[in-house]
Every structure is written in C-alpha cells, then in structure tokens.
C-alpha cells in the first residue's frame, strides 16, 4: 500500500493561506487585545462626544437664560420673523423667553407617579413569580413580563393614547374625582378629568414601562435568597407575609433599590410614549393630576422641528440646554444606581433597555 505523504502530513503543504493562518494564530491574543481595547474605548469617546456637543451647543442659552431657566415658567419663542435682541453678546429673537420649570416639574412628577406605582407592583409580581405560581407556569409568565420591557415605546404610547387614556378618562377618573375628600394631596385628584391625556395617564404608562425592569431583576434576586433562612423563619411560626418582610426583602434590599433607580432613569428619559399621552402643553404645570403637561424629553422631540426655524439658533440652543439638564439628571441617577448596586450582589440585566 502506497501512502501519499501530502494527505497524511498537512504541515508539509506550505501554501500562502496556511502561512497567513499561522501568523494570525501566533498573534491571535494580540489581535483580540487590541480589538477589545479599541472597541471598549469607543463608548467612552461617544459619551464624551455627546456631553461636549450638548455643552457647546447649550452655552449661549445658558448665558442668556441664566439661573432663571430652572425656575421660570414661560416658553416664548419670540418674534421669529422680525426683531432681534442682543443679550450677553448672544443674538436672540425679540421677546424670546424660556423657562424650563414646567418641564422639570413634569419630568419629576411623571417619574414619581411611575415609581410609586411600579415599585410595589414589581415586588408583588416577583413574589407571585417566585413563591406563588408553580414553576411550569411561572417561567412563561416571567418571560411575558420580560417581553413587556421589549415592546417599542411608540406602541405603548399608541395604546396609552387610544385605549388606556380614553378608558380612564371615561370610566375611572370621574369616579375618583367625584369622591375624593378636600384634604391636602388628595385635593389634586379632584377637578376636571380631561380627555385622558395628562399627568396621571403619563405616570401610569411610564409605570407600566418600568415594571418589567424592576420586576424581572427583583425576581432574579429573590431566587438567589437561600432557602434555609426562609425555612427557619417559617419554622419559627412566621406567616409568608412576615417572611417576605423580615427575611426575603431585607436580604436583597440594595439590589431592589438599584433596580428601582435604573427604572427611574428610564422613566426620566422616556420620550415617545410620554409625548403621545402627556398632551404636550408647553409652559404650564398641570393644575391637578389629570392635567395636560410635558416633560423635558417630550418637549425636545416635539419642539425640535419648530426650533430649527429660529434663524438666530437660540431655540436650538435652549433645547440643547434642556437636553443637557436631562443628561445631567440621568447621569446622576445612573451613578447613584451604580453606587447602590455595587454594594450589593451582582445583578442580571433584564430584557430591554435598562
């Protein structure tokens, strides 16, 4: 039997492609290292780029609007077709006065409502998924909750404005508004209920959007709680409510807080859904919880078109200042979440933006 050496000993076949393969294999670790390092510097560069562009674009607006930007409630684009004023060396349309207090208030109000609703519901859902439902049904239901995080926000907005808002304004809000007592806080639930576009509807829609983030993280955290302490507490005669309050929740408290703050970050920056259900009213704070309003993000998306028609560019600069404000709030919230989470166990990321 003759043996063809070329098929038995492939190392002898010294083709050029083999030589390239040899080179790559020899330097493969270096290729991975250089590629990885270069790629991982890009997000840092992108973030710096974004913040610098915002700061540069916002600078004229910061100079003109001053500190009053944070407290004033007027949103007047000025006379776009006529006169021009010079303020602090910046050219602005005559009569342009911008104040972001209604936007800031709207952003904080909607996010607060979203958190007040989402946190208890998420914790309750996590308990139902980990301790109530049998495993074969808890898994698909848990997956369904995760899917909710992946539904595009424009669809949630569409549903909010066409289905949820009218339903609430027609069937729920009037009942609440006619029965609340005239005492502080609850007073804001009285009065005209509008058509379903407004503060409370926005808060509810935002709450629905951040529940999956908080709930799926909380569920994963609950699953990490070892069974022995819980069983010990049960053996001492605690009810499951007491076990939850005294063992399970304290065990993962900082993780829940971290997930909540991440959800808060999402609620603060959410744009499209809020722009669709808030009513998008500029320069006014909602008189009651049903009132129409706007947020920083919703204002940027709805005003950028008309701001581009301002020949002096001042409206664009003001939107940059609003964006910078939102970016600072968002960065602060994220760093806070990071600080809290780092002191707790590692979290698994939920589906969707988190």
């Amino acid at each position, binding site marked *: 039997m003759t043996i063809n050496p070329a098929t038995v000993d492939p190392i002898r076949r010294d083709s050029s492609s083999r030589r390239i393969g040899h080179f790559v294999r020899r*330097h*493969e670790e270096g*290729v*991975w*290292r250089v*590629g*990885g390092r270069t*790629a*991982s510097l*890009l*997000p840092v560069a992108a973030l710096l780029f*974004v913040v610098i562009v*915002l700061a540069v*674009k916002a600078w004229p607006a910061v100079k003109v609007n001053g500190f009053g930007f944070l407290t004033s409630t007027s949103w007047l684009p000025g006379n776009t077709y006529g006169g021009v004023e010079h303020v602090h060396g910046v050219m602005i349309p005559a009569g342009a006065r911008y104040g972001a207090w209604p936007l800031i208030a709207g952003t904080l109000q909607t996010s607060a409502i979203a958190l007040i609703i989402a946190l*208890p519901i*998420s914790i*309750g859902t996590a*308990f139902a998924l980990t301790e*109530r*439902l049998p495993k074969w049904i808890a898994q698909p239901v848990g997956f*369904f*909750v995760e899917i909710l995080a992946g*539904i*595009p*926000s424009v*669809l*949630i907005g*569409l549903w909010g*404005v066409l*289905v*949820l808002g009218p339903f609430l304004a027609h069937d729920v809000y009037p009942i609440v508004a006619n029965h609340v007592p005239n005492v502080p806080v609850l007073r804001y639930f009285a009065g005209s209920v509008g058509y379903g576009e407004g503060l409370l509807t926005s808060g509810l829609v935002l709450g*629905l959007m951040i529940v999956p983030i908080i*709930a799926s993280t909380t569920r994963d955290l609950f699953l990490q709680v070892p*069974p022995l302490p819980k069983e010990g507490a*049960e053996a001492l005669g605690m*009810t*499951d*409510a*007491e*076990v939850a309050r005294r063992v399970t929740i304290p065990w993962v408290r900082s993780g829940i807080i971290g997930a909540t703050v*991440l959800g808060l*970050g999402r609620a603060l*920056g959410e*744009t*499209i859904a809020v722009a669709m259900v808030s009513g998008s009213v500029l320069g006014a704070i909602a008189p009651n919880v049903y009132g129409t309003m706007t947020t920083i*993000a919703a204002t*940027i*998306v709805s005003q*950028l078109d008309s701001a581009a028609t301002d020949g002096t560019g001042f409206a664009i600069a003001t939107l*940059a200042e609003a*964006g910078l404000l*939102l*970016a600072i709030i968002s960065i602060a919230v*994220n*760093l806070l979440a990071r600080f809290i989470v780092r002191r707790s166990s590692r979290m*698994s*990321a939920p*589906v*969707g933006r*988190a």
Partner: protein
Amino acid sequence: MSVVTVGYPKTGWRRAKAISFRLFTWGSLLFVVGPALWLIIGVVARALPNWRWNVLTTLSQGTSGGLENAIVGTAVLMLGVLAIAGTVGVLTGIHLSEFAISRTGRASGGTMRVAIDVLSGFPSIVLGYVGYIALCVGLHWGFSLLPALLILSMMVVPYIAKSTESALRQVPTSYREGADALGMSTGYALRKVVVKSALPGIVTGLLIALSIAGGETAPLLYTAGVTNNLPTWSILHHPIAYLTYYVWTDWNQPTAEAHIVSFDASLILIVMVLVLLVVARVIVARTQRHAEGAR
C-alpha cells in the same frame, strides 16, 4: 416557597396581614399581565380587521399606501446596527470579561464600565438631538443612514457589551484550564473554546439589541428623516424610512387610511419584536438544558 406550607395564623391581625399579602401579590401580577395582554391584544385587534398583505409590497405615500420602504428601511437599520454595534459591543464585552482584569485578579476597566452604564440609561432623545445637531447639520450629512446607525449603535452597544461580558463570565473555569492544559495559546483558546461556548449568550444579547434598535423612534426622528422611496446604497444625504415613524405620525392624522397605515406598522413591529425575543429565549432555554445535561 418551599416544602413547608404555612397555614394562616388564628389571631385576627396577623391573619389579616397574611391574607392581604397574598391578595397583594396576586393583584400585582394581575396589574402587570393584564395591561400587557390588553396592550398587545388591543393593538393587534385594531390592526387585523384592516390588514392587507399588499402593505408589505407597496411603497408608502405618506399617510396612505403601503410600508415596503419602511420595512426594508428598518431591516437595513437593524443590519447596520448588527454590523457596527455588534462588532463594537462584542469586542467591548470580550475586553471587559477577559482582559480588563488587574494583577490582583480583580475586575478593572472602571471608566469603561461607568461609560457603558451611563450610556445605557442615557435619554434616547438627547442622543437623537446630538446626532441631528452634530452629524446631520454640523457635518452636513443630512438626514441619512449613517448618523441614524451611529446613534442607534450608541444606544445598544452597552446592552451587547453587558450581555457578552456576562455570557463569557459564565463559561466554566475548567474549560479555560482544559484549553490551557492542552497547550492552546490564549488567543486560540479564547476563539475556539471560550467565545464558542459563550456564543448562545452573545447571540441572545444581539437579538435583544436588534429588537431595541428596530423599535426605537426618538433617536431616529431627527437623524434618519423619512422618505417614500426604498433605501438607496448611499449612506449619506439620503433619508431612510422606518416602521416606528409611521406609527408615531399617522395615528392622529385625519384620514382613516392613515390610521390603518399606523396600525399595520404597529402589527409588523409587534410581530418582529416578539419573534426576536422568543428566538432569544429559545436559545437561552436550549443552552441551559444542554448545560444541565452536561453536568
């Protein structure tokens, strides 16, 4: 909870608290699953009665016509994001998991991790604004594919990087040690053993990132523009259509035809996102089963 089943205590107050806690957990689940089902069924129920298959093959005429341009545009955007954000995100994840480790064995790369965390929670409209002002206007690129891709990639790179990193960290140490013992070079072992066994996790992250990219509206409104034509091969100066635009603009147009377009786009979006997420989930479930079998 566990094997032990707890009966309600006899005393009134603790009994009331225990019962209300159970009601609260069931109620919470209802308040999450109920609206979610209501949302999906509500959108699908409004879209189906007027669904025509020819929206898939007809070009849009603004508030009427089909959605072929938007479907192809969204597909192009997703493929572009897969190419740009996929490359950057996976390499970043590999760097964070494999190389960003200090000599003491603790995780380093702090700045990158902070940047990725901050970027992942960054308001999407602010990214869109920066894309508009710096890329479309500042660099005279106009509404076009490239600025849209760059902004979308900025949004999803953190997600891909995080999921890649956690997938790589779940690769058992014994795999790496085994590769080492066989005399593989670090780079070869990384490609053939570590990345390969983490591939399902990486692909899952990519699919979820794709579903995010396909469903975004705010960052695209002022970077991609919109057009009634199919995407061209030029990545600059030519606007590109996408599905979420038609949901966002057509729902409150006066004509019934526009509403139909809006709901058709919604239906396609929901199906697309659900398919991507379910495929991602199936991959996770399959690999978990194999991992358990291998043990």
